[in-house]
């Protein structure tokens, strides 16, 4: 989500905030139990609200409304609850909340969903209030049981204590009585100075099961009599089935059915291996009359031409045309970015079970509020009879956040085509994943910058051409004047005082579906703006760090602070090359989190080898510094893979060239730089960390490479760009 989008979500859902903050009389129940009203919490449980359940065995279970795929909400949101409850960390547990938009909406979206690095930001007050309410009720229960004033009772590390009478009780012992207490409407919250858990590195709640093979993901769900299904999708985007012969697939032992569904040909089998073999045997003829048959090269050329023609202005100030005309020196360049697949290591998958009009889904659903109506509509069942179990997901990076709910639609179509009670597991292979679209949009940036005789930047234009992520789906309503901010975010609202500038956009069309990819528009705007700025500063004879500091607006204090911090961390002394190493810097804010990075790079047979990365981040209050550092490390590794290796290529005719990790290369352990992260100590409300670590690494390495070799790589990935 962009800033712009989030604010719209926020204003649209402002009325809900209070109501949703502590939903009542919701009870903290997971999965099917909550939806079907069965299996209410066991006798003696205390569920003060929809987020917390205290059991007689003293465990506190927090229902997490955000999907966990490594970015840390299970731990982060539980920390908020434990903090305000004064619980002991060892008694905390986390479970996925069921799909219920009223109880578990993302307060920035007004629907249940995860994205835009909002999990912590939108939950910060809500989960603290939930914890504070639970604490107040436990205290009230103790006061009643002991006949003492509530004001004299203290709580610490999961123990409720009355000092004067030397009485104490654990949460579990008070749970039953607490359940009968009045829920406080506005329980007091701690001052940040009183925090005991927030700001510490508590052990992540999902670490142990994920280190022992015990964590249950979607693919690990096995239902009685379940069949495995794989789907042959069209080999080009916008293609359709013309003809198919199910016979060769049906001849494979274990294959039980072959059905045409809207997304392709589904092969049903009693085992995964049989389904895969059946699909290999399938004979399908495709119709490409409405398909994208241009190659990537042809598309890039068309995008480049479009960026030279008439475009929509996204943001402008001053008289940029006049400024460029009067400039002493004008620098022009064009950056080209390929389509990128997210390639989460767990491919897309889902399990569905049909039981007499009830549909139960197990899936790494990132937008349960969109997946649910899609299932209901496709299957013709009432939404109240759709159960969604939000599973641990093996990564997403945006891929599971599907505005068109295409995966839910596909598994629903599979169940519908079977036309009976039963259960089915849908598996996408890696080839399906890389061929499957929903890519980071292919993008062209045409940039012009002007410098005056004193070396000041006097004009800056950036024209982008790419497809819109938001157009044509439920998000289109949020587009204003035909503009999709996800297309160019990061090339607008820059922290620099550029005086005369213009950012504009040419919207491209193609049947190739596009989607947000870890940091969305910032994936390319971060590279284009920060590398281009480096070029201008160099032309003006300015130091990359001091030049940026001098350009920062007066109100860009957070940008300034991370830039100064990272320069200090790396011992920046103005030397861009030392020995065989080059150094490059980049600064980029995304999702209200400010990140600056410096990369140390050498030339390894014509490709950059990144040895070290220094990273300074300001994400407001650091709820769990360990999670923040991990997300910076991971965001850097993810961005580095894309920068160096990744491209999805349409061949002439529209087929995809890349098939698997041998030709869609991933960064490996021997290529991972040593990453050093420092978190600025600020008191801003917490902002997200899942995405903002990614945008700066590309330009930091790109600028280090420029320093070292003199080559500005304008075509990504580097494997292609260093040749051109």
């Amino acid at each position: 989500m962009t800033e712009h989008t989030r604010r719209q979500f926020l204003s649209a859902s402002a009325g809900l905030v209070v109501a949703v903050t502590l939903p009542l009389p919701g009870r903290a129940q997971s999965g099917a139990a909550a939806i079907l009203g069965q299996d209410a919490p066991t006798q003696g449980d205390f569920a003060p609200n929809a987020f917390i359940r205290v059991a007689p065995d003293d465990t506190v279970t927090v229902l997490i409304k955000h999907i966990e795929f490594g970015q840390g909400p299970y731990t982060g949101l539980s920390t908020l609850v434990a903090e305000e409850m004064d619980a002991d960390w060892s008694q905390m547990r986390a479970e996925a909340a069921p799909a219920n938009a009223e109880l578990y909406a993302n307060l920035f979206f007004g629907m249940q969903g995860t994205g835009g690095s909002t999990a912590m930001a939108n939950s910060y007050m809500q989960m603290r209030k939930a914890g504070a309410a639970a604490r107040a009720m436990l205290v009230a229960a103790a006061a009643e049981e002991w006949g003492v004033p509530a004001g004299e009772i203290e709580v610490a590390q999961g123990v409720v204590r009355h000092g004067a009478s030397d009485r104490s009780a654990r949460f579990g012992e008070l749970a039953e009585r607490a359940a009968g207490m009045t829920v406080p409407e506005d329980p007091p919250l701690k001052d940040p100075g009183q925090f005991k858990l927030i700001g510490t590195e508590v052990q992540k709640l999902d670490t142990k099961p994920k280190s022992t093979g015990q964590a249950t993901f979607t693919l690990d769900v096995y239902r009685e009599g379940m069949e495995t299904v794989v789907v042959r999708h069209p080999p080009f985007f916008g293609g359709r089935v013309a003809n198919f012969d199910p016979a060769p697939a049906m001849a494979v032992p274990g294959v039980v059915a072959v059905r045409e569904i809207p997304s392709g040909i589904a092969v049903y089998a009693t085992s995964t291996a049989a389904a895969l073999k059946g699909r290999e045997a399938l004979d399908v003829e495709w119709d490409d009359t409405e398909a994208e048959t241009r190659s990537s090269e042809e598309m890039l050329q068309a995008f480049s031409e479009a960026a030279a023609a008439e475009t929509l202005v996204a943001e402008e100030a001053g008289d940029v045309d006049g400024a460029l005309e009067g400039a002493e020196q004008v620098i022009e360049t064009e950056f080209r970015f390929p389509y990128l697949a997210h390639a989460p290591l767990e491919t897309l998958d889902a399990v569905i079970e049909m039981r007499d009009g009830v549909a139960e889904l197990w899936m790494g659903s990132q937008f349960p509020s969109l997946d649910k109506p899609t299932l209901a509509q496709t299957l013709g069942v009432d939404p109240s009879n759709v159960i969604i179990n939000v599973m641990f997901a093996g990564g997403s990076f945006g891929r599971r956040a599907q505005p068109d709910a295409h995966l839910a639609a596909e598994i629903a179509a599979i169940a519908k085509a079977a036309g009976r009670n039963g259960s089915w597991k849908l598996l996408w292979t890696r080839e399906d994943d890389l061929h499957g679209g929903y890519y980071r949009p292919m993008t062209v940036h045409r940039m012009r910058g002007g410098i005056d005789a004193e070396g000041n930047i006097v004009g800056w234009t950036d024209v982008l051409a790419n497809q819109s992520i938001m157009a044509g789906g439920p998000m289109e309503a949020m587009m204003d004047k035909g503009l999709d901010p996800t297309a160019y975010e990061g090339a607008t609202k820059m922290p620099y005082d550029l005086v005369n500038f213009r950012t504009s956009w040419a919207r491209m069309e193609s049947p190739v579906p596009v989607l947000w990819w870890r940091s969305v528009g910032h994936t390319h705007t971060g590279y284009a703006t920060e590398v281009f700025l480096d070029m201008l500063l160099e032309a003006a004879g300015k130091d990359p760090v001091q030049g940026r500091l001098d350009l920062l607006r007066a109100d860009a204090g957070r940008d300034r602070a991370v830039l100064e911090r990272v320069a200090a961390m790396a011992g920046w002394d103005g030397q861009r090359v030392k020995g065989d190493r080059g150094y490059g810097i980049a600064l980029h804010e995304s999702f209200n989190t400010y990140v600056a990075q410096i990369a140390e790079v050498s030339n390894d047979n014509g490709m950059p080898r990144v040895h070290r990365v220094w990273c300074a981040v300001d994400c407001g209050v650091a709820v769990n510094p360990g999670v923040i550092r991990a997300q910076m490390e991971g965001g850097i590794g993810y961005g580095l893979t894309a920068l160096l290796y990744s491209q999805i290529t349409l061949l002439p005719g529209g087929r995809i060239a890349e098939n698997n990790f041998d030709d869609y290369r991933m960064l490996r352990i021997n290529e991972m730089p040593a990453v050093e992260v420092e978190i600025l100590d600020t008191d801003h409300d917490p902002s997200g960390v899942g995405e903002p670590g990614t945008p700066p690494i590309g330009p930091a390495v790109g600028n280090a490479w420029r320093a070292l070799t003199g080559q500005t790589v304008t075509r990504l990935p580097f494997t292609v760009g260093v040749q051109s």
Partner: protein
Amino acid sequence: MKMWKVSTVALIAILSAASSGWSEEVNGLRTVDEFDGFTDETARSQALFEEMAKVIQHPRCLNCHPADNTPRQGMEMRIHEPPVVRGDSGFGAPGMRCNTCHGSENVDYVSGDGSIPGHSPWMLAPIEQAWIGKTVAEICAQIKDPERNGGRTLAELHEHNAHDGLVGWGWTPGEGRESAPGTQELFGELTNAWIEAGAACPEG
């Protein structure tokens, strides 16, 4: 593969070192009798080795005879992905030996095209038998040198080329891979003829 029996033309082809196609070939490799026209035994032996080199320098063979510590893959001889190292005895590193992925035979992928190659054993050729980046003359000298050919006599070398299983894998490389030229039988015959003609090495 098609075969032609047009000996006159073939002789011209040999003498003019013209491209194959007119001579008697099996899978792109000329048969031994195509070298009958030589009067000079040394020249004939050299020509036979040049023919053997079509096999030796084919990516199916070169990829596992690197001069550094990592095998190559594919006709373009790219660096092996995932990255792997020679390790002790050419079997890879502790934690990731060659047989972590390569089994006792080729295995077709269940989904998608291609296969993962396999044979028992599956290993890199020793570093002293490095061929990548070497001239045919250099490779020939290495092959004849017992210090650098695994202590083999010429007879043992013939046996190796004609019957070794891992050498033979070059002609049964599995789905998605082009085989080495000729057949292992023909490669053995060429080796034998080369030895009998004096095992001369090409100059250069």
